[in-house]
């Protein structure tokens, strides 16, 4: 089971779009996939038309009184299941803090799914918190969408440095440019330069396209409702690159 998370400290950079499309592509290629929408805003949950409610909220999941298993919902797509968001996830930090090994809880919660799912995606809320630290300990690869700006790169460096200090198991940190505007020279230059120079920055970039925004109206991954669009092909290229990176 490979665990991926889409994570960035900033909001609105394309985390959910990446998680939803990559999870759909993984399922389409025959994998059994689980997407856990950890963001209390529940954008991924909304996109899959699932109700953003988990019995007992995050407390019950975190302290183990309810099994994650019972909360999982099938999406409309074969092989792709969703663990929905719940507005009560906003308190997850406090609940994690009450646990014995507060930074390893998400990792423990996912362990029973080892035989059941081939791929797990965690769609994280934008923040740096106990939850994000948990996610970093739980994943094989942290996928970091970045808008092409010098400050984004600085955040990526900070994140890589933070993960490098982990004892034992360290996730791979893979950044990719997102919401790239081909008309802006700065965007083009930054994407070219950094993906060539920096280890951990992927070659595939996701352009800013209105069809990606249409996901909210269509309530489906762009790879499902417009499989031949440029956006869908970019996500496919990204999935191949990510999947190839860690085998």
């Amino acid at each position, binding site marked *: 089971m490979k665990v991926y998370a889409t994570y960035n400290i900033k909001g609105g950079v394309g985390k959910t779009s990446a998680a939803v499309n990559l999870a759909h592509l993984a399922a389409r290629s*025959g994998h*059994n996939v689980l997407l856990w929408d950890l963001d209390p805003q529940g954008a991924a949950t909304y996109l*899959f*038309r*699932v*109700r953003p409610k988990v019995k007992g909220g995050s407390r019950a999941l975190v302290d183990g009184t309810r099994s994650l298993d019972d*909360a*999982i*919902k*099938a999406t*409309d797509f*074969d*092989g792709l*299941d969703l663990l929905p968001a719940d507005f009560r996830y906003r308190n997850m930090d406090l609940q994690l803090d009450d646990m014995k090994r507060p930074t390893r809880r998400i990792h423990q919660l996912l362990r029973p799914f080892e*035989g*059941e799912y*081939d791929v797990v995606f965690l769609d994280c809320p934008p923040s740096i918190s106990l939850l994000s630290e948990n996610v970093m300990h739980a994943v094989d690869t942290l996928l970091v969408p970045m808008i092409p700006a010098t400050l984004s790169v600085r955040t990526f460096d900070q994140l890589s440095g933070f993960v490098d200090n982990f004892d034992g198991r360290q996730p791979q940190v893979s950044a990719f440019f997102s919401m790239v505007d081909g008309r802006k020279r700065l965007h083009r230059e930054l994407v070219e330069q950094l993906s060539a120079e920096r280890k951990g920055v992927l070659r595939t970039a996701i352009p800013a396209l209105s069809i990606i925004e249409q996901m909210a109206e269509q*309530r489906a991954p762009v790879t499902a409702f417009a499989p031949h669009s440029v956006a869908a092909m970019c996500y496919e290229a990204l999935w191949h690159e990510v999947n190839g990176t860690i085998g």
Partner: protein
Amino acid sequence: MSANSRAFTKQGAVEIEAIAAALQPKFAITAGPEEAVSHTWLDTFDWRLHEAGISLEYLDDGPLIMQFPDGNRLQGPRPKKWPALLHDLPAGRLRDALDPIVAPRALLSVVTVQRAVRESRVLNADEKTVARLLTESSDDGTSRLQVQPLRGYEADADRIARLIARVDGLKASATTPYDDALTLATRSPNDQVQNLPAPLQPETPAPVAVANMLAQFAAVIDDNVAGTIAATDIEFLHDLRVAVRRTRSILKLAGDVLPANLAERFQPEFKWLGDLTTPVRDLDVYLVELDNMAAGLASADPRDLDPFRSFLVRHRSAERRRLVRGLRSQRFKQVMSDWRDELAKVAADSHGGPAATSLARQRIERAFRKVVRRGKRIAADSPSEDVHELRKRCKELRYLLEVFRPLFADAQYRPLIKELKALQDTLGDFQDGEVQREAVREFAAVMMEQGAAPPATVLAMGELAAQLDAHQLNARGALVGVLRPFLANENRDRIKALVRR
């Protein structure tokens, strides 16, 4: 599992509009196109999936779909051809789910039917798919509709099924699509039951009872010849051997009730058949066990055993050629054909004589006495030959208990068979360890003679032999522990109660 049925049948076509009307206003339907598909089902030769209530199927060139009794499904890629062993399937959840049920048997294509199929989605008020409806119509004019639940929406699937149950003309289905398709197959799980002779009755004349049970073993031998010759999976040969062994045991223990030297005439033939099948079966067992044993190596690298594995594979190929020649020989065909004829004559012509029950009582008592006599002499340091003899007597007792089981009450039988099985498992462990340890030594010698054994391989085989020694020591320790309860008064009383006239 849901209490109400999620599968329905109808004479004539299922009108999707009628279903949609029944589901309103809570649910809407998005109907998919109707397609002509060929639908193929798979199972093992001994119907393990059917027995577990599971169907394994595919449509046209689609993926393999495993459907559980509660309607849940798993899917995965298909192997290139059938029959397929599990390792021919790509690794994944489907293979993992099949493994405990199917292995080591091969999956065979059982039946293919042409159907018109339509998959529709049932949506809730959020336009979320909460279940799928699968409608299939076949050439005979019947249609089948199945509500397939989606994870997390099982309650919706039940509600949908309840609403559909009210539609005119639809009946809850008592059979699965697999059951329906099997009525068109050349083989089916019911064949065995249908072909059985009349069940054993207490008053059945003993010669008829014995001839009937031997005829059943002969049918098992016949059934497994083609799969053994084709090497479809290793269980064909195993089942064939078990039937031969049972035949030999019954001939030895009760063959005297058959007329005019029948037992004496056929005993050497079945010994020949048993001996013919032994080498390949032994090699099958070594090859199956080798990976487990290799994983337990402490000093040697499991890869050091690769030349040993290759040697076993080569050796097996040679032995298999001999086995196949034997099974295709005129001698084998003649023996089986004469045997069936003779048994049929006995079953048709025998009247009178002792009843099956009195034969059963007498022979079970005698076999149990032999087990007790041999068992009492066994201690932790007894010679292996004595343990081997005890094992053979236990097998004979087991076969007798099994063939005469219909004559006795289940309550008397069950605890006895349970204790006997525990004893046989330990004896089997002991014997296998002994045989394998000797075989590893002999194989090592042959491989060295042939220059096929690099030093690392010989060392690894030495470690294997040591592992088997340790295993043997454990089995010896366990043996006395399981013998005691089997020989205890409680069991003797059970046998006494069974054979009391």
